[in-house]
């Protein structure tokens, strides 16, 4: 710390006292006999504060004035020779930072010496009560805001954690009434409708219609798909193979099968058709003509729709109110049957099925509405 102080004191006796005190305070004291002497060494000494002994010539007020003229911001302190508050205040008004009372002791001068290194002014306010009140209001508002934010956060967290999660809809009503076939692609679901003779392409998440293709020459009753094509079975028993381009260009067509199949699927190796009226399942070669390989009798009660994947045949059976799993090698053997909750509606008539990535899709009519639903493949 810069600790040089200048002391203006003519009395040798007082200088001796003050020398000892400031030495004990750790100050580097520079003594001057009078104001002229002080001003002469002031620039050289560059003191942090000036102490003026009162009661000497010139008076302390003049010394304060002259010193302030030279160094307006330097702390000036007056060492009073007696305790006189009125004089102390007058000297402070004249520019003294503070006054020390007599007798001068280390204890008396220590706070003044230390304080001399810092200065500030009086803070004045008209109404500190109002200020405090507004601070209190601000603090209360802040606390309230923090509390509310915490409460809202907790509520949101609790709501998110403990409220039941919205179920992803597994069922969609269709804007047409007579679906007959369904195939699932990565980014779309294709459904045929016999009444409107059209192929509807849906968004698989929302089931909004993305595209409608009119089938003017065909009344579709079944759909099947492979990687690059789809088969469209008509009411006349003819199955058309179409490309999966934008217009579903026809690639080939079979002769009319009898009875006309109303379900079809491709397991990756063989083509399968089924007739719900007779309960007949036919295994076919996947060529253009879809030659028949073998016929099977559906082993359940009533076959309403059939589909397949690379491992199983799947049938919707309203008699059993179940989805039935059949072997591809021996479709006359039921591997398992699992009740289908949707059959709780007695008016439900499943007309089409599809299997994709462990999920079974169903399309059908329920009263005067058509719907699509899916469920995970039964074990």
């Amino acid at each position, binding site marked *: 710390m810069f600790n040089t102080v200048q002391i203006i004191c003519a009395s040798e006796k007082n200088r001796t006292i003050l020398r000892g005190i400031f030495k004990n305070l750790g100050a580097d004291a520079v003594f001057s006999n009078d104001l002229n002497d002080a001003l002469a060494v002031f620039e050289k000494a560059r003191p942090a504060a000036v102490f003026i002994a009162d009661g000497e010539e010139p008076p302390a007020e003049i010394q304060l004035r002259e010193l302030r003229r030279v160094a307006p911001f330097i702390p000036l302190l007056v060492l009073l020779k007696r305790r006189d*508050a*009125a004089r102390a205040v007058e000297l402070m008004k004249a520019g003294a930072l503070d006054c020390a009372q007599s007798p001068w002791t280390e204890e008396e001068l220590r706070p003044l010496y230390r304080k001399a290194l810092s200065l500030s*002014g*009086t803070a004045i*306010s008209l109404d500190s009560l109002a200020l405090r009140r507004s601070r209190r209001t601000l603090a209360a508002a802040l606390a309230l805001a923090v509390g509310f934010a915490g409460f809202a956060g907790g509520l949101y967290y609790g709501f998110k954690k403990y409220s039941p999660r919205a179920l992803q809809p597994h069922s969609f009503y269709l804007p047409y009434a007579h679906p007959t076939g369904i195939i699932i692609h990565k980014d779309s679901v294709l459904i045929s409708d016999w009444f409107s003779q059209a192929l509807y392409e849906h968004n698989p998440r929302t089931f909004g219609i993305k595209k409608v293709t009119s089938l003017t020459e065909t009344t579709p009753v079944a759909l099947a798909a492979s990687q690059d094509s789809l088969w469209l079975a008509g009411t006349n028993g003819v199955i058309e193979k179409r490309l999966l381009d934008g217009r579903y260009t026809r690639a080939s067509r079979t002769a009319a099968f009898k009875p006309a199949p109303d379900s079809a699927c491709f397991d990756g190796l063989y083509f399968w058709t089924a007739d719900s009226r007779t309960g007949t399942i036919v295994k076919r070669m996947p060529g253009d003509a879809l030659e028949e390989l073998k016929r099977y009798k559906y082993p359940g009660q009533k076959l309403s729709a059939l589909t397949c994947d690379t491992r199983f045949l799947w049938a919707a059976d309203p008699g059993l109110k179940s989805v039935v799993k059949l072997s591809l090698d021996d479709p006359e053997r039921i591997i398992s049957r699992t009740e289908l909750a949707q059959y709780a509606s007695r008016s439900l008539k499943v007309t089409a099925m599809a299997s994709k990535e462990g999920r079974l899709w169903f399309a059908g009519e329920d009263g005067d509405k058509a719907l699509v639903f899916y469920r995970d493949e039964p074990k």
Partner: protein
Amino acid sequence: MNQNKADSCIPAVIKTSLDLPPLWGRLAFLSPLDGELVSHFELPEGKVLALTFELGRASFEDIRARIKKALRDPHGYYNYSLVFLDPAQSDLLKAAINEAAR
């Protein structure tokens, strides 16, 4: 908060008793209801003082205040939180502060 400030802290004569010589200090903060006094003289909390000081063109004599709290700063000075006791004197202070603020 940008508060008004006097050019320097206002010097004040501090009367503690009729029997004892007065002390002195500076007002570091002043409002109509309370204030803050800085002095190197030690005074006890709860003591009633009479302050004499000037604010602008107004002179105040024997403004009665009680020491609400006393804290000693690292330099050895005492910071006294004061509460002014006389509402009439507080009104005068308020008027003087208003005048000084113009």
